[in-house]
């Protein structure tokens, strides 16, 4: 039993601890803090969407927020159009609900579209990028550019998107006509979070996940085994986009507001920072990074906004230089290297392993 427990990655322990903490939190936290924690959970889901893309498949999306924002805006427009032409549009003389918003007036359909629209964008973009023979860094450039452009576009199209002011006055989730209490809403977010986590866990542990990691580590080898790397990259990109879109929609009821800031480069940078600091490829790092940083930000940034950003940049730099795998990643690395050492008989364990002559012939594998 102890031997098996030693073999389980420490990330699972951290996951369990985190979820236990989240489940019990409303019992100790004030309502204000519970609401903050709801927002945190939405960000955790967003972080997970990037982790399955970046951590597993090695695709660093510099504009992940565009999927978040697209999902959010779809839902926001849906709510705004529920009772006819929204105020921000009427101000521009729009008298009829535009065609693309008429579909959105049906809320369940809008929720579906909030995931489908980012998925389709990811699909089209991914198709052009992954089937091309262009350098890997191209993906980074294009995603950054697209996020920047989309943000500018939403800023610009005031008539249809509310421009820089965004769309406000959005309603919370209701049962019948009663809005959910803060605590009930919190547990709803947590439930969705747990489901997304379990889905991501299943995904990364399936054969699909193993192939994704192999695409990242040795794409050419995979091709000669009969796998089509572009198809795998495209699939994970779409899934990642859809989950990000979901988190964007979950953002709306808590904040009642969405703006181009949620769809652009700055927010994309945030999620990159969470994963860079926390670690990626193991889900835990993404959750820990998102959790720690958004909490610290909410505690510090009201008073010290500029200093906070500076500290964040410095912290990220330090992590990249000295702990490139992030906090959780470095921890898991340490555990992994001990496992390799054990395999090569270099570490005395409780069940002593004999040193074998042939083991010394190989160079020690360094991750």
């Amino acid at each position, binding site marked *: 039993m102890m031997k098996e427990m030693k073999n389980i990655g420490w990330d699972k322990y951290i996951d369990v601890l985190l979820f236990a903490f989240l489940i019990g939190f409303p019992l100790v936290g004030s309502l204000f803090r519970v609401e903050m924690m709801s927002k945190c959970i939405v960000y955790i889901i967003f972080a997970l969407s990037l982790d399955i893309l970046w951590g597993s498949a090695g695709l660093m999306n510099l504009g992940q927020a565009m999927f978040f924002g697209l999902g959010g805006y779809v839902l926001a427009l849906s709510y705004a159009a529920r009772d006819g032409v929204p105020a921000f549009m009427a101000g521009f003389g729009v008298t009829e609900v535009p065609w693309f918003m008429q579909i959105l007036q049906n809320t369940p359909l809008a929720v579906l579209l909030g995931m489908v629209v980012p998925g389709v964008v990811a699909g089209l973009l991914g198709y052009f990028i992954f089937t091309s023979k262009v350098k890997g860094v191209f993906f980074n450039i294009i995603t950054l550019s697209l996020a920047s452009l989309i943000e500018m576009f939403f800023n610009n199209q005031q008539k249809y998107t509310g421009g820089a002011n965004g769309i406000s006055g959005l309603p919370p989730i209701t049962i019948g006509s009663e809005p959910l209490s803060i605590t009930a809403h919190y547990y709803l977010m947590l439930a969705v979070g747990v489901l997304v986590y379990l889905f991501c866990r299943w995904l990364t542990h*399936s*054969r*699909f996940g*193993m*192939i994704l*990691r*192999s695409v990242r*580590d*040795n794409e*050419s*080898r*995979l*091709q*000669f*085994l*009969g*796998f*089509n*790397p572009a*198809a*795998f990259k495209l*699939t994970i990109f779409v899934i990642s986009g859809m989950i990000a879109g979901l988190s964007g929609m979950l953002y709306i009821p808590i904040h009642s507001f969405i703006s181009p800031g949620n769809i652009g480069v700055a927010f994309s940078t945030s999620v990159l920072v969470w994963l860079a600091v926390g670690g990626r490829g193991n889900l835990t790092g993404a959750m820990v990074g998102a959790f720690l940083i958004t909490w610290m930000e909410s505690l510090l940034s009201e008073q010290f906004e500029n200093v906070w950003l500076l500290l964040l940049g410095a912290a990220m730099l330090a992590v990249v230089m000295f702990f490139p795998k992030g906090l959780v990643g470095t921890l898991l690395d340490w555990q992994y290297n001990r496992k*390799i050492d054990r*395999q*090569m008989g270099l570490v005395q364990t409780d069940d002593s392993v004999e040193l074998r002559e*042939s*083991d010394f*012939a*190989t160079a*020690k*594998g360094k*991750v």
Partner: protein
Amino acid sequence: MAFLELRDVSVSFSGFLAVDQVSLSVEKGETRVVIGPNGAGKTTIIDMITGKTAPTSGKVFLGGADITGCSPHEIAGKYKVGRKFQGPNLFDFLSVYENVEVALAGHSSVLKTFLYRKNKSIADEIKTILEQINLYGKRDVISTSLSHGERQWLEMGMVIAQKPQLITLDEPTAGMTADETYKTGEMIKTMMKDKTVIVVEHDIDFVEQIAETVTVLHQGKVLAEGTFAEVKRNPKVVQVYLKDDDEEVA
């Protein structure tokens, strides 16, 4: 038409003619060894068969189908061609077991990877292969921890797992001790008995151990072809190998 047929295949890289109108016919179940000095175009021929490089002219046929210029994953998957690379080319951070598991035939489409479940028949399949390459005892070892020779064998095991109809081996004994080389030769003869195999090699003793037919390449062209004994006696081949030695001395 032979099982694998190259017809007047040429490849030119920015003006440099690496392969010059090579024609090759390999019968089903044959073990063909391709030898020749460095730069003769041997690996380029393999690249063209496996889809890494498209010929600038000529055609490649496999089992009657035209595979000229197809993508590597199509040739590997649809046409079932397995390729072993020159240095061992594996998934460094997966275990021996997982390396073979990835390579298993029939589970390589996106959908299939979602539906995959490891059942008894799959476990048995992997176990058989691991035993054939002598690595069943080390199945949980991460592949970077293996010795060089073991990594070469692991890659061969992965190729077998693909259940290919054509296998290309690029210098499978590179970096091996004499003992390991001999074992590899025996492995090839047993594991790949009924398969069509093309081997690129330098080690003359190894060639003698496994070859049925030998093709000699020189400067992108076919110089000679025949059994090992015939080729060894062929004056043109002798001259090419001796001539190179002379040039070094001079």
